[in-house]
């Protein structure tokens, strides 16, 4: 096997989103996974980022402010009476 340039931890943390998104080229992906297999710090980091994504996914989207909704429904009724 060819000696490939190893990723440093500082480089790896910049690739995590590309890794999650399946946007790394196969060789890059292999380097990423090789590093991860040997590095507990980066493994933790990737776990933290995954936990962040799922925690953000459990946030409630902001509700529509009541006055905005009231104004929109009124506009909708006006529009409806014009169609």
């Amino acid at each position: 096997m060819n000696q490939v340039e190893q990723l440093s931890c500082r480089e790896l943390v910049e690739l995590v989103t590309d890794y999650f998104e399946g946007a790394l080229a196969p060789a890059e992906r292999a380097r990423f996974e090789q590093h991860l297999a040997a590095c507990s710090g980066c493994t933790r980091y990737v776990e933290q980022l995954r936990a962040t994504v799922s925690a953000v996914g459990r946030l409630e989207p902001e509700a529509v402010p009541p006055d905005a909704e009231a104004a929109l429904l009124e506009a909708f009724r006006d529009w409806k009476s014009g169609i």
Partner: protein
Amino acid sequence: MEAAAATTARDDARIVAALRAGDEDAFRMLVAELHSSLVRVALIYVPSRAVAEEVVQETWLGVLRGLDRFEGRSSLKTWIFRILTNTAKTRGQREGRTIPFSSLQSPGTVPEPAVDPDRFRPDDDPRWPGHWASAPAELPEERLVEAETRARLDAAIAELPASQRAVITLRDVQGWTSEEVCNALSISETNQRVLLHRARSKVRAALEHYLKGDEE
């Protein structure tokens, strides 16, 4: 993917038909689904929350007025966000705000490390250049679901630059696909990933800081 697109097209046709028929509940549901995302995208172009809310109101009026022109060549969502973006850009210019083109269209030009560089050993480190000096610890899983942690996450997202905040909101809070986000914001996949990466990295750092700080 094609099946998903077909489902979207069918749903869109149903929603548009309901709106054209004057179905108020259909309108209310569509507003509930998209309003906060619209506000966050508007904030890329306009300076304040109050102006963003006005832009979104104007957008909905534009949606209703333009409904007869909607032909389903793009998804309903994409079409609505195009109207929003045009409205917000016009309003932003009127407010004297220079459009932050670079933050959305070429976010990669300004480097922004995902992790504080002090967390790594220096490049001239004799043994482990660029490796962790202070490695991350495991996050306490049970704390992640606490209301206080959720409030911290909301606050961390609120503090992000507008384009990063919009992308993480659409992708991770609302669960949109990257394709939907690219279409809604008219940005490339690459730029979408850069913005998402920066947003997630900062929110992770805030989360780590909060959970660590609390344990001490």
